[in-house]
């Protein structure tokens, strides 16, 4: 059965030459004033370590979540640091006059609300959290050759059982597109494996515009379980 609530987040819109890393449990959000739609994993780390304060010309300021799965996933997958190491890092910046202690909020909802109203704010929340009023940044390395236009899109099935149990979330796929525009290969990068299987089956039927060479795309598909 096809579900009308299946939303395509960045499907076919965001093409990458390569993908650094992804996290199934966390997504990166930013205030609408931030011009960038994508951020590389390296730049994301530099933003949160206060080595970089702008993205595509927009000022950005990191925001932390106090604890929880999203926070742990973010530390592990994007910063590669423990909580203690991160706190020591920020204290070092603070006590040497080289930086500041980022604002820390207690929940996904607080982070989303703060990011929505604060110019330049960039934070992270769990994949399942509502991102109303903020933009979700895709993680990867932007391609040097322009994005491939999606010509034919097939919507993925939302398995009944999962739908009934309100099990949803974002599925992230790495898609290999031939020069002719056919999807040659799909790899699940993150998210629920059953939803991932469904999404992969649909994406394999997609057709892109012909290009000069084979390219790799990262595709995020949201199964809205609410």
């Amino acid at each position, binding site marked *: 059965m096809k579900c009308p609530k299946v939303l395509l987040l960045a499907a076919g819109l965001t093409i990458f030459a390569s993908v650094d890393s992804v996290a199934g449990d966390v997504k990166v959000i930013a205030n609408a004033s931030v011009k960038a739609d994508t951020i590389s994993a*390296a*730049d994301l780390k*530099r933003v949160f370590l206060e*080595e*970089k*304060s*702008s993205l595509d010309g927009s*000022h950005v*300021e990191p925001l932390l979540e106090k604890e929880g799965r999203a926070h742990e996933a973010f530390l592990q997958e994007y910063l*590669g640091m423990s909580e*203690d190491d991160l*706190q*020591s890092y920020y*204290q*070092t910046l*603070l*006590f*040497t*006059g*080289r930086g*500041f202690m980022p604002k820390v909020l207690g929940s996904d909802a607080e982070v989303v609300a703060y990011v929505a109203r604060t110019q*330049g704010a960039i934070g992270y929340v769990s994949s399942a959290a509502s991102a109303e009023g903020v933009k979700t940044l895709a993680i990867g390395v932007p391609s040097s050759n322009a994005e491939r236009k999606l010509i034919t899109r097939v919507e993925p099935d939302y398995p009944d059982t999962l739908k009934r149990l309100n099990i949803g979330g974002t599925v992230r796929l790495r898609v290999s597109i031939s020069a002719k525009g056919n999807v040659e290969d799909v790899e699940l990068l993150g998210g629920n494996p059953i939803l991932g299987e469904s999404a992969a089956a649909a994406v394999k039927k997609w057709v892109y515009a012909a290009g000069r060479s084979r390219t790799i795309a990262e595709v995020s598909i949201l199964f809205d379980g609410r």
Partner: protein
Amino acid sequence: MSTSVTDKLRVGAQLYDRNLGQLGQYHPSLDWAVADYRFKSWFGVRGGKVKTTLGLYNDTQDLDFLRTFALLPQSVYPTDLRDATIAHLGGDVYGSLSLKHRLGGLAYTAYAGHRSDSIYGGVAYLAAQYQVYFSSYGGLQYGGDLRWNTPLKGLLIGISRMNEDVTGKAKAINPLNPGAGFVPYSAISKADWADQFYGEYTAGKLRIDSEYRRFVHDEQDQTADIVLVEIYDDVRGWYVSGSYRVTKRLALGYYYSRYSVTSVAGGLLAPYAPHQTDTSLPANHVYDKVISARVDLRRCWNVKVEGHFMNGYEYSSYPNGFYPQVNPQGFKPNTNALVVKTGFNF
């Protein structure tokens, strides 16, 4: 304390105070006071009293909670000479950038300013034994640092350079005519410099550091127009340290620190300051083997217990921890020390 004035401009200041034996004596000083404007991630400027970037730990040497050890290796970070390198009144340009082709990242700092030592620091304390009492000690200081976060995860390597030109103003008993009382006295270094090479490797709970510093100090002491002594000190120090976090609350560490000085004197008082060129003598080196344990009772509260097993006492015209005023019976070739330290951070 610090605050952001605009997106790119930040200001802040911090006070510092200590009492370490006869050093510091609870005379507070401005640790840093900075206005920092970052144009781009690869280019920013900061001015005021700025912490000096020199090697891995110079600017963070007071942040005890960062490390397993109670004392940093004294061959490279002598705590009695903290003032000599800790900050400068001037400005920095700095930045960082990611390298293409996954070659890691570079961070640079270049600085120039005025160094101003506390008169409660090691240089002034050592001079006091000769009845030379400094009222000021400092001068031009400039240099730079370049560090590379290599593609090998956890490996950082870097190089620092510092140049300085220092003048100390003092009063002293004229050694040529002690009965005449105090006379103006000055200590002028012509062109001191330090080079420092360093590397750090972290993998999970393991951290390994190593640094080498060479410092050349060329000083001329005079009263009125009479040059009393000219001293050339060549100070070399290095260490290798390793620490491992065994559990969330316990970390263990070990380092080997090696320090030596050669000193050559000229001028009227040279006969009283014989050349020191043999670094194998205890008077010209300190070799320190250190074991350390750190227990984190809370996230903000730690206790450290550390054993130092030292050979040599390095006693020359340049200080390094051993002072005759507090060792009136003289120095012995070997010294053991137990350090127990607790710290709070918040």
